[in-house]
């Protein structure tokens, strides 16, 4: 049990290396993919939800709803396969897999995250190559997972749009832009924040499929190989790392929640949570 907390997971029976060092190698690659994808997802998700909510029950609302429901219903492997076929095979714009071109000299691992290491070394060819390889898997991941954010933003806009709170804001003489940005959108963002932790968990676990298809050397692929070869000594610490990732994301979301919404205090005793 003490080994669990000290990170001493022993040796990988398949490769003979220490499991901790393997995780330390794979985890930053996954983080790079997941964080970049999460960034795209939040921007797109909020934008689509906002458009749908502000144009409730119009054509734009219907299109936005169909868009997020369909992409939400897309199997992860379909998004990845279509991305590979269309953008790597038929229109060879992006590479179909891997993390960077082999012709590029990779930067020395400092943080382990390829793009950041490239920036630290001022190695621009490596940075561009890394980004080039990153876009396709990240977009595929974002495409499948942004739906929940859009839906939350849309329904929370619908909840406040006609409320007295927004009427008061208008009555105060605020311009329409101010009302929309500071009252309606901000409120919607608060709801989206608490859900973003859930979505982050989904993105994190979807890497099992995406990394396998895009040959991305990350934790998801590592987990899949461990599961496939019944390598339990590796599987258990990997599941622990994934679980920790979800818990940390939840914690960050809670902190962000309390920053965005002044009514909520962390560990508050005298504040009622709405």
């Amino acid at each position: 049990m003490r080994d669990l907390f000290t990170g001493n997971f022993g040796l990988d029976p398949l490769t003979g290396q220490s499991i901790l060092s393997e995780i330390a190698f794979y985890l930053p690659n996954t983080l790079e993919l997941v964080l970049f994808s999460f960034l795209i997802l939040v921007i797109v998700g909020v934008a689509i939800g906002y458009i749908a909510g502000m144009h409730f029950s119009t054509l734009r609302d219907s299109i936005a709803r169909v868009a997020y429901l369909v992409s939400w219903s897309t199997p992860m492997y379909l998004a990845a396969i279509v991305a590979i076929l269309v953008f790597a095979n038929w229109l060879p714009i992006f590479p179909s897999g891997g993390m960077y071109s082999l012709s590029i000299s990779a930067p020395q691992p400092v943080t382990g995250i390829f793009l950041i290491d490239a920036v630290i070394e001022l190695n621009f060819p490596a940075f561009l190559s890394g980004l080039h390889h990153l876009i396709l898997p990240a977009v595929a991941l974002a495409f499948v997972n942004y739906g929940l954010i859009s839906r939350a933003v849309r329904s929370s806009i619908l909840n406040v749009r006609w409320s007295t709170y927004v009427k008061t804001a208008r009555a105060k003489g605020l311009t329409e832009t101010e009302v929309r940005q500071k009252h309606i959108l901000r409120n919607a963002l608060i709801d989206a924040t608490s859900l973003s932790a859930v979505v982050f968990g989904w993105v994190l676990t979807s890497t099992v499929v995406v990394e396998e298809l895009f040959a991305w050397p990350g934790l998801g692929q590592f987990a899949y190989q461990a599961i496939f070869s019944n390598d339990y000594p590796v599987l258990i610490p990997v599941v622990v790392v994934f679980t920790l990732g979800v818990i940390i994301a939840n914690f960050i979301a809670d902190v962000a929640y309390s920053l965005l919404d002044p009514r909520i205090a962390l560990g508050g005793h005298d504040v009622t949570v709405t």
Partner: protein
Amino acid sequence: MSQSLKLRDLVRSSRLSALGLVIVVVSITLAAGFTIFGARITPYNPFALDLQNSNLPPSPSHFFGTDFQGRDIFSRVIAALPIDLGLPIAIVLLSSVLGIFLGMAAGYLGGIVDEVVMRVTDLFLAFPTIIMVLAVAATLGSGLVNAMLAFVFVWWPPYVRLVRGGVLEVAAEDFISISKALNSSFTYIITKGILPNVLPAVLTYATLDVGTALLEVSILGFLGIGIPPNTPELGVMVGSISYGLYTYPWQALLPAFITMILVVGFSFLGEGAREASDVKVRPYILFKTRVLGKAAAKEKSLTATAGRGSIQEAG
């Protein structure tokens, strides 16, 4: 105005839900048809190998083409429906029954039962779903029942939370305390007072959840874990092609698109139902279907003003 919303209203109010309902009904009919009549309703035998006709592209004789062993993909897609619909529905059904029992116990009994049930639920909620399912399914070994058990193992916690929240809300209502004062039996309060008020929320969530479960089941098949190889399952069909993706893309794309359409069906249906059960939006939908259905000409201007009015009433 009655606040109850019938399936008829739901379908009339939203074309999305209507489309979802059509997809769900058609696919379940096909699945039932295949379960009863077997290969007699498919154009080809979905299990028969025909190595001379392998890797054919889609054509009038083979709608979706054939796979690397010459099996007709269209027939295999139909043969996959009972598994791809049955497994998720069974998972959601078992999870919701488990969730209703535990959630009612936690919410209604409270105290130590609540504490224990909810802490265990929180523990399970923290696990990353698909990885846990993969791990459990790999441990249990290949097989459809094992795959289902692996799913139920991680699938039940949201239901407990949902039911417990609903029970806490309903149990605080006056009619429950009055019922208690009238000395109604425990089972009577549970079955007549609480359950009917909690079930609609569970049903709405479950409809959406069948779609999610279907996605994850097909991912399991795609990764080749838990579901036996050569089972006609949509994910397995996609996964078995990965080596020939560039040459025979339809072999992967068509089953994957069918998976998407099935999930879209459940999502549209569930999403419509969810919105219809939202108290802030429901009056608007009822107004639109019952009153505006007759005055369709003035629909646009009326909806805008009337919608606001009725939502204010509810809020």
